[in-house]
């Protein structure tokens, strides 16, 4: 279901021009930004909060934050989509933590939204083939391995919180996390640079 959507989205070179127009405060650029990434952001946030109304509020907050911070984004170095998705994820996790009365990680969440951290990312990162491959790779994980990755990414749980939620020893959870990440890396052919 995601593939047609991703196929319809232009990534790569177009982002640089879009960033420049956002920085010039061109309202039509905001429309283009939403048309390019709005559905991805909504789908991600909805997966986290599981409430359509709240997801709408958080998508609006996400674009508001990107609009406000885009001046710090280097148009030539790319990463607009990954940056926007990171902001979307953080807005959603922040909401979950607030709603559940959990501590807001005031240090970590804003830090991971800094646009410079997304510079030089692969321009075709979000193309349909890569996303399809990661979905296949996630499906190949064992149930527990997939659960810990989803609890970390979509619910923002720490490894200790996952151990408590899953009623498993912390060491077991850490093993599942590491083996899951290694499997994903092997499956996707990504490697940490030497």
């Amino acid at each position, binding site marked *: 279901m995601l593939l047609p959507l991703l196929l319809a989205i232009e990534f790569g070179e177009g982002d640089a021009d879009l960033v420049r127009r956002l920085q010039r405060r061109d309202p039509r650029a905001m*429309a283009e930004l939403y048309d390019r990434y709005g559905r991805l952001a909504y789908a991600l946030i909805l997966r986290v909060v599981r409430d359509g109304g709240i997801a709408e509020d958080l998508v609006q907050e996400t674009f508001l934050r990107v609009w406000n911070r885009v001046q710090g984004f280097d148009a030539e170095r790319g990463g607009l989509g990954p940056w926007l998705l990171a902001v979307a994820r953080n807005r959603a996790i*922040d909401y979950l933590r607030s709603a559940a009365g959990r501590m807001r990680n005031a240090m970590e969440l804003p*830090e991971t939204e800094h646009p410079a951290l997304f510079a030089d990312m692969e321009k075709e990162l979000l193309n349909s083939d890569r996303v399809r491959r990661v979905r296949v790779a996630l499906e190949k994980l064992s149930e527990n391995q997939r659960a810990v990755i989803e609890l970390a990414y979509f619910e923002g749980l720490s490894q200790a919180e996952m151990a408590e939620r899953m009623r498993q020893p912390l060491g077991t959870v850490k093993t599942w996390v590491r083996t899951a990440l290694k499997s994903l890396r092997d499956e996707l052919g990504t490697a940490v640079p030497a």
Partner: protein
Amino acid sequence: MNCDELRDHYELYALGIAEEPEAGEIRAHLARNCDTCVPGVRAARELTTLIGAAAPAAEPPARLRKRVLAIAGAQTGSRWNWSPVWAAVAAGALIAAVVFNVRAHRAAAQLERADAELQRVRSDSVAQTRELARLNEAFAILNQPNVKQVVFGGGAPQPPRGRVFLDPARGVLLLASNLPQAPAGKIYEMWVIPKGGKPVPAGLFQSAADGTAIHVLPGAVDVAGTAAIAVTVEIAAGAQVPNLPPVFAAAL
């Protein structure tokens, strides 16, 4: 710690689950633009980005696009395109037509319409400037790293619901949804309720037709001394003390 020791923690860091001291060490390496850790964490972020992009597809409602475009002052494309430049051109065309019109009374009427159009453009421009200033205040509060956030109405089948953000230096930001427009002659009033004190008026606002509302109380606020933020319906001029039970309250 050296980069080799941190290498196995890049993906945990990108997922937000790296533990100390490794997380702090990676932050320090990134801060000094480490040649090994910067590309390593970038590769890890690429992986986590793909996990997010692989979330089940979902179609957002059409109204969400309008809400997002309102951020940039372009709630409808046509309204923005008929911005002051184009409206002035339209007004100029009307004026030019008048000059060549032999019927004086029609010329006068057209001039009147042109003048009205210019007044409307000026009014729109003032409204847009005011809205931009209000949104900038909202941005400023949202962007504070230590802003306190309170959720109200979450999980309730009957709205309203939303969030309140409090920053000691910049003020209070209220974001609400599913808030029906106040009845004719009435308006919403926000109150800051101190611990052990009486509610303090915190500004008037109206919700939009889609039930959303953004209200900002700019300026310093005693976050630690605040017990709750509440909203009541009051007469259009506002009130100094709440006259009705709150429509909703966000307890800190």
